[in-house]
């Protein structure tokens, strides 16, 4: 590795050994968390606060015949019970989704998925609210559900969204990218074609903290303060203004500490709206926090793509083209969090990291009687599905051509000199040195030794597998001209103030759910203006205190907000130059910058530090014309392009031939996220994503029975890896800065979640290949692995 992780010391900070900006420093948020002083939504208690609980449908598809709330209302402690009928009167029974559809807040006509919201009880305490749920009498007329997405478009399939006038089927959208004719032409003459159906099952983000809200409506001012688990407080404020009719300047959204998000806290859920309605109706603050089953059954999901993939190549292993048809199960309401023009997110990055001639994809979205959502879920807008598709197909191609999967990749990776690289579905990859990353991961893994070991083990009948994946992410959404969510351009703001004594506050529009923004963004400011990170406060999560922006998901915080913060710091630095010139009685163009200080060219002893300049700006120094008396600035950053982090992953598994149990023995992850701000935080992000990859590849999924019962509705059945299922991660990195990003950073939050499932799956298939296995679908549970070993296709979830 040629890159070192240390940075030039900054003498201005008074400590020559200490890096001023980037580098491994402890997190500024940790002291409160390790003392148990984090402040999460359920920790909030307001005077007079009431507690809400939601009655949910036990069935997946049913006409609502009647609701009788009499007994619940009579229960001691119950203050109000709200039903869909009440909401119709308030015109709040349906709310817009993030995908131009609507979603029922409470059922008025028909239940469309198991766990759907039916009624809302408000009581003096949470125990009374929970007790009263059992006292609501509901009569359902059960209907046949549509559970298998493959059957959703059958003629005669029950129409789920029959409330929409004229709707006669469950079709939501067809969307295409690439060129079908060109791609078909390449396939027609290719030497080798590999085809496979690849299923990415439904899963759930399942952060440790479930979703919740505390709504506090103040009737005299007509003002709403809403504390909620939100990854995007500003977007939520605008949407609440539109939904509720409360003017936007009267709405304050506060996202306190968030116990993990992973996309789960992007959407606006009925529970949040019900807390608001409850506060308006009762005149008191109302708290609603979902339990774990509610979380797993109703607030969003991820994946659920059935992909028919095909790859074409020459017989000597040059990949020529890829094409795919995808069936996307969107549940009962189309509520995916994607930019408006991208109903399948950024799935068209399925061309992967390879230089190919043609590509085409078609995605069809359908309604089913399952929970709505379809969030990013640490997958950068469907990149996760796309990468599983291409990386599985490339592995299958290697198997068919009888070449090593790493060698096949090396042969086809886009070369460094080809960047910026325009792929066949319209993306422009910003920068990359793919071969370097893959070779580094092979070196760390000891790839050749592993293959030798595998050969010996195979001779003894042992099942050892080595899996490779290479991924290119597309994150940092995105340029306003292309990307918006419900009409809001995907830009982010930053405001920076330097106080007279040289301490600073930077206000950002993105929202940490554990990513360490209070540290990373302070480090960016520190790097740019040369004051230590501990002297910089990062404010986020309160719409009254922060500039507008679209929030944190899709690995966009550093690519978008990080750029905004760097630019606002540069703006301050530039302003400081003019003030310093006035203080030094010289011309701005005669000054030179070193970290933290403007000094006179040729005479470094004459200069002013940022702290001195801040005092000057706020003091009595005569300021040049056009420079006002502060050291503050603000910007809104509109990214010119997305960023394209990439990585090379290698996984080693051992499969128990007698039971099908898979053990991940080693995992090597080499990531390139461009410029690295805090390596410790980056490593942490990678580790977390890898662990989720183990979950996705081996155990995590939400299944349904034929009646539409959710079979993954608790942590007893929705399995998340523990410390026992994951190895000690081995990480490495390369640095290929993004040329269009102010500091060259690309973002890393989702890389490992994208790259690890195919590495693990490829390793499992590789382990089973002596038995003739060429593919199986995730999750590789013992039973499914065993089925594959018997030569059977993996059964549907």
């Amino acid at each position, binding site marked *: 590795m040629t890159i070192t992780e240390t940075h030039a010391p900054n003498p201005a900070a008074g400590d020559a050994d200490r890096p001023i900006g980037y580098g491994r420093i*402890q*997190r500024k*948020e*940790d*002291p*409160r*968390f*390790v*003392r*148990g*002083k*984090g*402040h*999460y939504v*359920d*920790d909030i*208690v307001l005077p007079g606060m009431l507690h809400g609980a939601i009655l949910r449908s036990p069935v997946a598809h049913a006409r609502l015949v009647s609701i009788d709330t009499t007994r619940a209302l009579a229960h001691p402690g119950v203050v109000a019970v709200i039903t869909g009928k009440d909401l119709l009167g308030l015109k709040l029974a349906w709310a817009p989704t993030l995908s131009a559809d609507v979603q029922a807040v409470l059922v008025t006509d028909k239940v469309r998925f198991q766990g759907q919201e039916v009624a809302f009880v408000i009581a003096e305490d*949470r*125990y009374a609210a929970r007790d009263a749920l059992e006292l609501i009498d509901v009569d359902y007329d059960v209907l046949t559900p549509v559970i298998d997405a493959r059957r959703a478009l059958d003629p005669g399939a029950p129409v789920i969204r029959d409330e929409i006038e004229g709707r006669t089927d469950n079709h939501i959208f067809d969307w295409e990218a690439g060129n079908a004719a060109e791609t078909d032409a390449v396939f027609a003459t290719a030497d080798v074609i590999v085809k496979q159906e690849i299923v990415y099952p439904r899963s759930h983000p*399942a*952060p*440790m*903290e*479930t979703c919740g809200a505390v709504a506090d409506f103040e009737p005299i001012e007509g003002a709403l303060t809403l504390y909620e688990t939100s990854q995007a407080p500003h977007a939520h404020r605008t949407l609440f203004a539109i939904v509720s009719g409360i003017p936007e300047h009267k709405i304050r959204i506060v996202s306190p*500490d*968030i*116990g*993990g998000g*992973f996309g789960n806290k992007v959407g606006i859920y009925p529970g949040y709206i019900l807390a608001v309605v409850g506060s308006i109706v009762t005149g008191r603050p109302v708290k609603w926090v979902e*339990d*774990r*089953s509610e979380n797993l059954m109703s607030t969003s999901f991820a994946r659920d793509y059935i992909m028919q993939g095909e790859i074409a190549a020459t017989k000597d292993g040059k990949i020529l083209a890829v094409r795919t048809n995808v069936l996307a199960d969107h549940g009962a309401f189309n509520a995916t969090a994607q930019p408006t023009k991208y109903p399948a997110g950024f799935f068209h990055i399925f061309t992967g990291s390879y230089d190919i001639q043609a590509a085409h994809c078609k995605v069809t979205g359908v309604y089913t009687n399952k929970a709505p959502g379809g969030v990013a879920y640490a997958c950068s807008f469907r990149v996760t599905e796309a990468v599983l598709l291409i990386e599985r197909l490339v592995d299958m191609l290697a198997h068919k051509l009888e070449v090593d999967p790493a060698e096949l990749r090396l042969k086809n990776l886009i070369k460094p000199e080809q960047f910026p690289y325009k792929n066949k579905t319209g993306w422009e990859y910003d920068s990359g040195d793919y071969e370097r990353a893959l070779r580094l991961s092979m070196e760390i893994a000891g790839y050749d030794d592993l293959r030798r070991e595998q050969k010996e083990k195979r001779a003894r009948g042992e099942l050892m597998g080595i899996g490779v994946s290479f991924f290119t992410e597309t994150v940092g959404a995105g340029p306003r001209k292309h990307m918006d969510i419900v009409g809001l351009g995907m830009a982010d703001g930053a405001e920076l103030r330097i106080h007279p004594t040289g301490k600073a506050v930077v206000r950002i529009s993105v929202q940490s*759910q*554990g*990513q*360490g923004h209070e540290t990373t963004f302070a480090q960016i400011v520190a790097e740019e203006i040369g004051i230590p990170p501990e002297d910089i406060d990062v404010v986020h999560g309160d719409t009254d205190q922060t500039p507008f922006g679209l929030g944190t998901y899709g690995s966009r915080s550093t690519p978008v907000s990080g750029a905004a913060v760097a630019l606002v710091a540069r703006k301050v630095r530039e302003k400081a130059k003019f003030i310093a010139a006035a203080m030094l009685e010289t011309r701005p163009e005669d000054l030179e910058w070193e970290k933290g200080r403007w000094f006179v060219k040729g005479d470094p002893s004459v200069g002013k530090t940022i702290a001195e300049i801040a005092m000057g700006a706020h003091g009595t120094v005569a300021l040049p014309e056009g420079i006002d008396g502060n050291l503050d600035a603000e910007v809104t950053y509109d990214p010119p392009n997305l960023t394209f982090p990439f990585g090379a992953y290698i996984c080693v598994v051992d499969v128990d031939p007698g039971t099908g149990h898979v053990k991940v023995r080693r995992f090597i992850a080499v990531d390139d996220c461009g410029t690295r701000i805090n390596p*410790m*935080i980056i*490593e*942490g*992000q*990678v*580790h*977390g*994503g*890898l*662990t*989720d990859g183990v979950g996705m590849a081996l155990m995590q999924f939400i299944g349904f029975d034929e009646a539409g019962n959710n079979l993954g509705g*608790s*942590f*007893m059945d929705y399995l*998340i890896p*523990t*410390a*026992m299922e*994951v190895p*000690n*991660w081995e990480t490495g990195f390369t640095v290929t800065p993004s040329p269009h990003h102010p500091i060259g950073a690309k973002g890393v939050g989702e890389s490992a979640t994208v790259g690890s499932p195919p590495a693990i799956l490829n390793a499992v298939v590789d382990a089973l290949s002596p038995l003739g296995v060429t593919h199986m679908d995730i999750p590789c549970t013992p039973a499914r692995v065993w089925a594959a070993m018997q030569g059977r296709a993996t059964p549907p979830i």
Partner: protein
Amino acid sequence: MQISMTVNGDEITRAVEPRVLLVHFIRDELRLTGTHWGCDTSNCGTCVVLMDGVPVKSCTVLAAMADGHAITTVEGLATGATLDPVQQGFMEEHGLQCGFCTPGMMLTARALLDRNPHPDDTEIREAISGQICRCTGYATIVRSVKWAADHPVVAEDAEEEVPA
């Protein structure tokens, strides 16, 4: 019913409904919100507290069952301004991200180190295997516990901190 227990060294007495879960008692009644909850089925371990020094899932213990026992929550780990080595270790080795599972993880780590001052990786992983973390991937938690094992509170300091 009336219950009494020691929480982080303080004697407390309260009247509660028999069905009140210990986690709710700690959070809602005592307002010690460092103890979290994350599931309903005793699977996630974010609610772990120490009962007589032993880690328990406080969502699956009734407050009434803790009557007469000593409870330690995350708020009781530090001694005044001095952090427990486990707390320091989690900061040093990036053993936390969102902070939600962290109190339970640290309490389990403390109980482990009290029993086994020099656990190996496997022993640490086993000890925390009833607790889920979605952020860290566990390796940095293992490192954090090892950091704490390598930096124990020296006995004389401990003596100084305990008032005579």
